[in-house]
């Protein structure tokens, strides 16, 4: 098991959002404030870890013909639990994310990790994979959130900081472009974030090759 490699894969080289392009629905829909991004990211991370662990533990019990049905049942179970806990203990987040919490069931990232990783590997390795992929998802979400919130509302830290949780105003009204918070802005910003992460990866690759050549 190689924690560093898994972490790097989750964060950058196999990032669920920017490389695997999974979980796009939530990435586009809820990335309008920092609070939403962090909350959604943490919820998905917890669910991915739990479902990865359980599916990995049951990988020899579940027959392959009914595996997808079994995975979806397990994932839906964890999602509903997280939904209930959020409603009971963090109602502000539950109200803010609304219908997108139950919709984590169909977030391909969770099922993707179950099918592509946890169903073939050990429990500990799967837990680490869930954590790393979840962190990668959260970071990607937060980056999109910060950009959209800043350009669209002119604020930073919406839902967490500032008066009444409205965020700290950085760009004064009426300069922010409301369109960026709307769906069209989601697609635009996500496109630039994908391009940016691609550029970053190529740059890092070049750098590590140069290092090797110097040796």
């Amino acid at each position, binding site marked *: 098991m190689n924690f560093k490699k898994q972490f790097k894969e989750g964060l950058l080289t196999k990032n669920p959002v920017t490389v695997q392009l999974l979980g796009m629905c939530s990435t586009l829909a*809820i990335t309008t*404030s920092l609070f939403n991004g962090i909350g959604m990211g943490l919820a998905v991370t917890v669910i991915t870890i739990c479902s990865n662990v359980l599916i990995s533990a049951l990988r020899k019990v579940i*027959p392959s013909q009914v595996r997808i049905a079994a995975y979806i049942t397990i994932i839906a*179970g964890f999602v*509903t639990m997280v939904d*209930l806990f959020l409603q009971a203990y963090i109602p502000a987040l539950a109200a803010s994310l609304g*219908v997108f919490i139950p919709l984590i069931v169909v977030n391909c990232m969770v099922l993707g990790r179950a099918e592509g990783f946890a169903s073939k590997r050990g429990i500990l390795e799967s837990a680490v994979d869930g954590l790393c992929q979840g962190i990668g998802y959260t970071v990607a979400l937060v980056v999109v959130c910060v950009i959209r919130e800043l350009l669209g509302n002119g604020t930073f830290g919406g839902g967490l900081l500032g008066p009444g949780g*409205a965020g700290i105003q950085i760009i004064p009204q009426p300069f922010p472009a409301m369109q960026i*918070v709307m769906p069209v802005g989601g697609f635009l910003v996500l496109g630039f974030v994908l391009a940016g992460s691609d550029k970053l990866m190529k740059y890092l690759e070049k750098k590590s090759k140069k290092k090797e050549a110097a040796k």
Partner: protein
Amino acid sequence: MKTESNVMYIIRLAAILLIITSLVAAALAGVNSITAPVIARLTAEKTQMAIEAVLPGGGEAIDFAPVDLVSKVYKGENGYAIEVTPGGFDNTITMMVGVDFEGKVLGIDIIKHTETAGLGAVADAETPAGQNFRGQFVGTSGSVAVTKDGGAMDSITGATITSRAICDGVNAALACVATLG
């Protein structure tokens, strides 16, 4: 596997799925039994806060047979707090509308909704945009509508359906108070 007949094999698959779904259902029931009282208490608190927010001095529930969008009526010394449930963009919105004895809106407060985050959810947000949206209903009477429908209420950007639903709720509350006198 070869010694097993097809029928037995299918039964085995079904049995394993049944066990998994039963275990998940049991776990959910367990979680629900922990969270249900907490959620119920939070909802009750939120309802109480909503009544006090829209009706200065608060109010007591009065006997009222649910009709149309109106589910509950609370009466206080300054007017009524009407709980209405208009259909929003995603699902039913539960909201409280305060109306004085002259039939003027005292204020609105949203208790529960599942509108889109960042768009319809602004109606319930404690941000300037949300406060402005709810504030414009104060003092209105008769019936209200969004500007797109020829009314005077500015709808939330990108959330006309939600804004219409809130107007529906306010109209239902106003109509209800008119019948109560």
